[in-house]
């Protein structure tokens, strides 16, 4: 089963990570899900694929009543992000899923209908969750053409989706980045191949560098804290990505 661990708590406002399932099959990419709670309302980010639904759901049940989840947030359209949507809707048909307007016609292939999916405009928006306002930060073309992240200005946490993701070996299961130089090597190949636009990358780096971030939480791998957040942004800005990294044959 996955572990549920609170990474931020201030009164009734909290962030919980659902991660690290030792019994997960090796052929399925490891994912992190985050619960953002404000009062009685919870938002679940990138709920994950249908195959890992049992592990995610049971881990969530250890920390909150799953009926407290009022909305889902899908950073983009990939199966490891949102293919469990049908199962979540079986459990609670009232759930709504926020995602880029680009994917509102695609994601229903995983479940749901036109009422389920709420399209986020390209420029982002503000999401209300209990007494909390969370900013939807556009990160288009990193890697998806309709890609969104979440920024909680109170907790100073950025949920960065695939940006900052690392494909860590099985024996590396730390929740937080402890050694940036070592960790970033697990992120290098992923970013070079999955991130296709240098222009989008630099635009994102500029915008995110202006935010006050204590923690950057990716959907794969470990959480960047403190100075490692800016370290990552600088590293990413310098990194050759996409077609630049392909060897000419």
């Amino acid at each position, binding site marked *: 089963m996955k572990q549920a661990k609170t990474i931020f708590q201030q009164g009734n406002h909290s962030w919980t990570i659902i991660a690290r399932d030792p019994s997960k099959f090796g052929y399925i990419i490891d994912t992190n899900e985050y619960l953002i709670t404000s009062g009685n309302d919870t938002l679940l980010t990138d709920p994950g694929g249908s195959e890992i639904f*049992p592990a995610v759901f049971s881990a969530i*049940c*250890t920390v909150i009543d799953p009926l407290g989840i009022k909305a889902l947030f899908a950073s983009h359209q990939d199966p490891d992000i949102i293919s469990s949507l049908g199962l979540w809707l*079986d*459990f609670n048909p009232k759930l709504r899923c926020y995602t880029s307007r680009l994917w509102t016609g695609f994601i229903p292939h995983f479940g749901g209908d036109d009422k389920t999916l709420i399209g986020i405009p390209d420029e982002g928006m503000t999401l209300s969750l209990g007494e909390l306002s969370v900013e939807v930060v556009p990160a288009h073309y990193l890697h998806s053409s309709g890609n969104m992240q979440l920024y909680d200005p109170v907790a100073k946490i950025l949920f960065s989706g695939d940006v900052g993701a690392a494909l860590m070996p099985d024996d590396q299961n730390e929740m937080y980045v402890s050694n940036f130089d070592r960790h970033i090597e697990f992120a290098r190949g992923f970013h070079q191949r999955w991130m296709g636009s240098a222009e989008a990358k630099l635009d994102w780096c500029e915008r995110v560098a202006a935010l006050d971030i204590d923690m950057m939480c990716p959907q794969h791998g470990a959480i960047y804290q403190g100075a490692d957040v800016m370290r990552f942004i600088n590293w990413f800005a310098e990194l050759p990505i996409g077609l630049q990294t392909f060897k000419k044959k």
Partner: protein
Amino acid sequence: MKKHQKNAAEDLLDIVHLNEGIKQVVVIAFHINLMALNAILLANRAGKIALGFGVISKELRVLAVELTQLMHALKAEAHDSVNCITVLLRQERRRLLLTAAQSQVTNHTSALAGVIESHAAYRDEQVVRIKHLRNELLGKLMDARRICQFGIAISRSAKIEAAYGGSFSQQLKEVSTDFDQNIHAILPALDVLCNTLEDNQ
């Protein structure tokens, strides 16, 4: 694979085989139709001496059209069956994942109980519906088989009539042999399909 999924997957495979069989029969029926049309023209040319052959050819043409229509109806029902089976497979997969989640939950243990229950009820309904559709398919295949058996009898009569065809006898004989071969080619295909559907009842 769990029992219901396994059964549904087998059902799906049967429908795939059925669709392939339908294609074969439609092609043969098309040939019979074309042959019958040529035979009618040939009988007209032969005149009085081939009147009986002409009547039989018309019968065979009607038979080919009936068979084609029946195959189209089968195709539509097979399509409905595929829809039902795929819905069942998807629902069953979801039910199993929900059940797996339920078995791992320690708090809020009743959270998924109602959902799993309704999934199981829906699955049972779908299983009954699929069984009903299978019976419908089998019924139509039996009808097709009867049409073919009638066709075999007619083609036999065509051979007899050809023998009385005078100077056209040889041509009529060739046509009636073609009829016979084509109609005989359909039966084994139908038998296999009937057996497949009967075996998995």
